């Protein structure tokens, strides 16, 4: 998958078009999809939101759970997505901003193998002179904004750690008559410690918007039932 992601350049990608009619087959094996705090309230109406650790960096990453086991996505089928809310990162596809090899610089990349990419249909990326089209510029801006939101999301995780509000949680899933299944490596807000916070800290968390995200995260755990139901219907 990663091999097909390349930095955009007009010489190589001058003829490419991207179909904006949404196809989400690229995510059909993503169990966990990263989300940013700005979309938590919306995402919480559809998916359980939890923290997991990034395997490369160990950092806490906020994700929407879309499956109950690795490589399972209970929302994305043959191209379409069955959800009232679609996380930003999926909507940005096939574009992403990634750090270049040497310099700590971000480059706009495209997934060349994506079903959305074509040489005939959809929106052009470059004009005849090799300049970015307005469409590509808009995509690039959206990616940039997403990176900024991710940075704020990272700070949110730091804030939770600072106040000792994260806790490891084993999720237990019951599917019909099967043995209950457990999922480890998941971290959620510790409700007990939240309730013990002093008034001043609470007021600060409220003012900077963190409290809303905290509650969205807590409520979102109820969506596990939705996942179980979908899984047993498969």
């Amino acid at each position, binding site marked *: 998958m990663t091999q097909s992601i390349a930095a955009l350049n007009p010489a190589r990608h001058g003829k490419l078009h991207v179909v904006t009619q949404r196809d989400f087959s690229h995510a059909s094996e993503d169990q966990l999809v990263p989300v940013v705090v700005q979309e938590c309230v919306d995402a919480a109406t559809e998916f359980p939101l939890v923290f997991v*650790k990034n395997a490369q*960096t*160990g*950092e806490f990453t906020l994700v929407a759970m879309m499956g109950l086991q690795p490589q399972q996505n209970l929302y994305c089928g043959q191209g379409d997505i069955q959800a009232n809310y679609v996380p930003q990162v999926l909507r940005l596809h096939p574009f992403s901003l990634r750090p270049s090899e040497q310099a700590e610089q971000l480059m706009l990349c495209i997934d060349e193998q994506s079903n959305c990419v074509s040489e005939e249909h959809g929106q052009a990326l470059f004009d005849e002179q090799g300049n970015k089209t307005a469409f590509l510029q808009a995509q690039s801006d959206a990616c940039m904004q997403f990176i900024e939101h991710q940075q704020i999301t990272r700070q949110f995780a730091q804030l939770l750690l600072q106040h000792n509000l994260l806790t490891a949680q084993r999720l237990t899933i019951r599917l019909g008559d099967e043995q209950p299944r457990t999922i480890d490596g998941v971290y959620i807000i510790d409700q007990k410690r939240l309730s013990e916070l002093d008034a001043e800290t609470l007021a600060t968390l409220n003012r900077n918007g963190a409290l809303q995200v905290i509650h969205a995260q807590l409520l979102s755990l109820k969506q596990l039932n939705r996942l179980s139901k979908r899984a047993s219907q498969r």
Partner: protein
Amino acid sequence: METPKKISSVIVLGGGTAGWLTANHLAKKLQPGTANGVCVTLIESPDIPTIGVGEGTVPAIRDTLKYLGISETELLRECDATFKQSIEFINWMAPSDRQTHRYHHVFDYPPAEYAPHLLDWVMQKEQKPDFANAFSYQQAVIEAGKAPKGITHPEYEGVCNYAYHFDAAKFGQLLARHARTNLGVKHIQANISRVDTDEAGNICCLHSDQGQQFVADLFVDCSGANSTLLGQTLNVPFISKKAHIFTDTALAVQVPYTDPQQPIACSTLATAQQAGWIWDIGLTTRRGVGLVYASDFQTEQSALDDLQRYLGTDADALTVRKIPMRTGYYERFWQGNCVAVGMSQGFVEPLEATGLLLFDVSARMLAEQFPVTHQDICRCAARYNKKLRYAWDRVLDFVKLHYCISNRRDSEFWLAHQDSNTWSATLEEDIQHWQRHLPSQYDFTDRASVFNLENHLYVLYGMQFNTMPAAFLQQQADHTQAQQFYRRIADYAQQAAKQLPEHRDLLQRIARFGLQPL
């Protein structure tokens, strides 16, 4: 009757690792700055340098750092620290079939169910697997060049048990910063040039060469090998242990890496020499190497040659530091209102990296059993002296064990170590016992000691110590069950060695992303 006077202030004299570790432990428990707290002040000389060596630790350090509230990420980033999973002993036995003898004292204890299989292992005669490899999967991890944990493990947790190698000076600075900024320790720079005592033999005042005076209820002597208060002022006698442990000099060097990406050993390498041994410790930025030798058995020039030979071409242009070592301890560690922690209480060569360990144990014991009033001192001192003397004796025996069960006969040094006249009575009894009986928990129950049964097993059987249990016991060995046990260990070893990250790679990731607190 007047109420006994409360102890409300402590002075720690000395700012080496022992001094700052003690100040941290005291302040953590005694809460300076709070209503009922005890004031903790550390005085160090701006002129007398710290010893500047002491780069190897044992796993107990992790508990201490976590307890004190120091972040593991900070330790690893700021002290050039690396993970230590074992000591690899090289050449501690004579070569057999021209093969260099090597074994690991790994930090992971064997899995709980190992005990019945010990008999099987001891009874196997030919071509048996290494003891450490048969009973623990950690050696496989080390030999694969892997770290004891991954980037997603929380601070101070891992798959394998571990300690650290670090830059001693930087570690001292980290401890100092934590004590001052987070725990409320007062810090004064002064050369203490005179000490006043009262008629009862208590210390009452320290004078600096600038005419300052410092008074406190209790004084902790962390002045290093000088033992300024306990030894020099209170004249507590020193008990030499040179008759058991002959090494008395160290030659230390710092060796740069030739390639910045050179793999870093995850063990301390301890390579035996004709009259001592060489430590080799990999930090992120350099190696620390040193020869410990016995000057009664070897000239300095010959020792330097041994070190040169070990270092190979790396040896040119390196500055060698010579450090005298005096093995033994003071008859009492706590006398009157003076408690010694650190090299001021005694010294044993760093073979099992016991320096910091003993000082950590002493400092924590002092902090947790701290006398409330002057009346408590006598009782607290007696208990402290008894416990610590015991711990020191066990550590001395354990260090000596490495030498005296060797089969090397190539120099007077090794022959003298094997002569049971140079053994302590307790060690001689242990060895005789273990020739007939498997080492067991019975041998360790009364030991509030720092090395346990499992540590002894790795050394004894790593060195092919011969235990010959009674015939009725021998027939009870269950080889089939034991085979299954060894296979489980081997499977796990293979998995762990595959999954864990490479040592330097993990250290670089930690430098960049840090470890998470949970």
